[in-house]
């Protein structure tokens, strides 16, 4: 059966006429993607809130595209009337990442911006929020960046309890010793 995207098409048209320079895509049922340059993010959010009935801001997340030297910020909006998720995606450069402050549109963006500033080091000039959010006294590069080597940091800062250096998979040995049978589905998770 052919799926019809009537309300998604409608939203698509509305956004197409309102903004130039944006790439639109209907990802799946009830999900519309907008790829926009970073100057257009605030106007799109405002337009969606005022004209399209997007009352609710769901999430702001960040993706580290280290290969392209870019961060991607994803603003996820939700409209209770049309029940369509609107994803506004924008890319900013990885060196000196600066994004426009949008917490005047939805106040809850403030919290997400604090998190992203701490975890990715993206700066949002002009917004008011405590510097420390989850971490305390963090001196390394922001930990969710992909060039932050977690294992390295862990082996430097914390000690490992001796005795498990070999990190063997003892599941099978224990099973053999006690005559237990490992179920088939569990075998494919074996480390060997």
């Amino acid at each position, binding site marked *: 059966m052919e799926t019809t995207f009537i309300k998604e098409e409608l939203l698509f048209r509305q956004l197409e006429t309102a903004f130039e320079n944006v790439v639109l895509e209907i990802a799946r049922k009830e999900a519309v993607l907008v790829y926009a340059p970073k100057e257009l993010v605030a106007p799109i959010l405002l337009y969606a809130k005022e004209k399209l009935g997007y009352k609710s801001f769901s999430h702001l997340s960040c993706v580290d595209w280290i290969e392209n030297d870019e961060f991607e910020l994803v603003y996820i909006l939700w409209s209770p009337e049309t029940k369509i998720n609107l994803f506004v995606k924008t890319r900013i450069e990885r060196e000196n990442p600066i994004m426009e402050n949008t917490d005047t549109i939805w106040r809850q963006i403030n919290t997400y911006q604090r998190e992203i500033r701490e975890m990715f080091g993206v700066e949002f000039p002009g917004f008011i929020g405590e510097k420390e959010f*989850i*971490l*305390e*006294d963090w*001196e390394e590069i922001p*930990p969710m960046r992909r060039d*932050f080597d*977690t*294992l390295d*940091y*862990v082996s430097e*800062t*914390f*000690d*490992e*309890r001796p005795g*498990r250096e070999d990190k063997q998979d003892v599941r099978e040995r224990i099973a053999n010793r006690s005559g237990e049978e490992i179920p088939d589905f569990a075998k494919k998770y074996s480390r060997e």
Partner: protein
Amino acid sequence: MYNDNNAQTIVEYIKNFTRKNSLFMLAYGTGCGAIELPATLTSRYDAERLGVRGAATPRQADLLLITGYLSTKTLKRVIRVYEQMQDPKYVIGFGSCTINGGMYWDSYNTIKMLDKYIPVDVYINGCMPRPESVIAGFKELQRLISEGKADGATKYKENLDWYRENQKKVLKNWPLVEYNW
């Protein structure tokens, strides 16, 4: 007469007997293990028959139960809480995360060995330990107390420098305050 060995033994016995049968427990429930404690304390497993009951504040508590993983941020609070408790005090590390980091073995923000930062008397392993194991842990602690071997607090006092050094290695920029404990 007062230095009579027998008399002292009797006093020690009474002390240890009451201590082991009356454990006021402060559950530091930031990890996922906190959810096992309601089951342990209520009708089905009923830890109160062993004399274990909840204490509301660290000042009243004898037993600090660290349920699950500790991030470096909560470690600060745990150290403060531990130092506010009154002697004699005991610590139970609860779950694999307190023993060797458990599933957070490569997490940048979770400590791996709890006994490097505060002295731990009993570990309960498992992820998660079921209420039966928690009760077994209480029993083990009671055995240690009655034998006079649960001396974590003395260990902490005597080796304070070593503990402080480890704590400072993880908690940077923390002005360590001396409390009146």
